[in-house]
């Protein structure tokens, strides 16, 4: 099964790896030092991120460096941001409506 970008960003460790290599390309060894987990776990996360085309590998001398494929990630985060914006717009109106309903209930009780 082809890995999916939603799955890739659902995992907190993978999100942390993304945040880390967004700053600069890093070797698996360097990435591993930031996490309290096994080398195998980190390489599995990196494999999943690579399969989703969220990260890119580059050979430099004897080391492999991982860096972020920002365009891929941006398509999803932009969409999720818009989703958030639309819902939050509705929810702000709901906040105001609920405050009004609460006030009406309070006044009803006073009677």
């Amino acid at each position: 099964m082809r890995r999916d970008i939603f799955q890739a960003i659902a995992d907190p460790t993978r999100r942390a790896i993304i945040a880390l290599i967004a700053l600069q390309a890093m070797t698996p060894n360097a990435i591993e030092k930031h996490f309290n987990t096994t080398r195998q776990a980190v390489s599995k996360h990196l494999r999943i991120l690579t399969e989703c085309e969220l990260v890119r590998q580059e050979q430099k001398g004897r080391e492999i460096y991982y860096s972020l494929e920002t365009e891929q990630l941006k398509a999803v985060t932009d969409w999720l941001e818009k989703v958030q914006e639309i819902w939050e717009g509705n929810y702000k109106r709901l906040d105001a409506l609920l405050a009004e309903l609460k006030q009406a209930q309070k006044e009803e009780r006073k009677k």
Partner: protein
Amino acid sequence: MKPAEVSTPSDREVLVKRSFDAPVNLVWQAYTDPALMRRWLTAMPGWSMPVCEMATHVGGKYRWRWRDNENGQEFGFTGEMLEVVLHSKIAHTQIYDPGDCDFGSMGGEPSIITVTFNETNGITNVTTSIKYASKADRDAAMSTGMTDGMEMSYKQLDGVLAG
């Protein structure tokens, strides 16, 4: 209240979480009474909700329709109630009706929307799950111009406010 949190728990699902400073009976009322729904569920600034037919029994059909007040273009959602538990849960199917809005396709199969309500000390936590029928449908929703159209409305509004 903290702004809505959006996450992607699985490859076909989007989860939206938000808390409200009100007891669950009032939040429930705002989610199920059409007269109240129309006041907040307007989707975007400059839009209204001319049709809001709600159902709160299993198997009941609902029909929501939005209109861009500026150009009169409409789109909507229809579907059927799958589960209704008073003050706790509403689950329904959701079919996109593009109307005369050029938002593009949103995929063929209905999505499943599940809203859960949970009150603690007068604060109600609402969780909304949007589950697409397939990854293809999710991608269609993601690539649809609908969100662009929405963004355009925001920009138009910004322009109006700036002017």
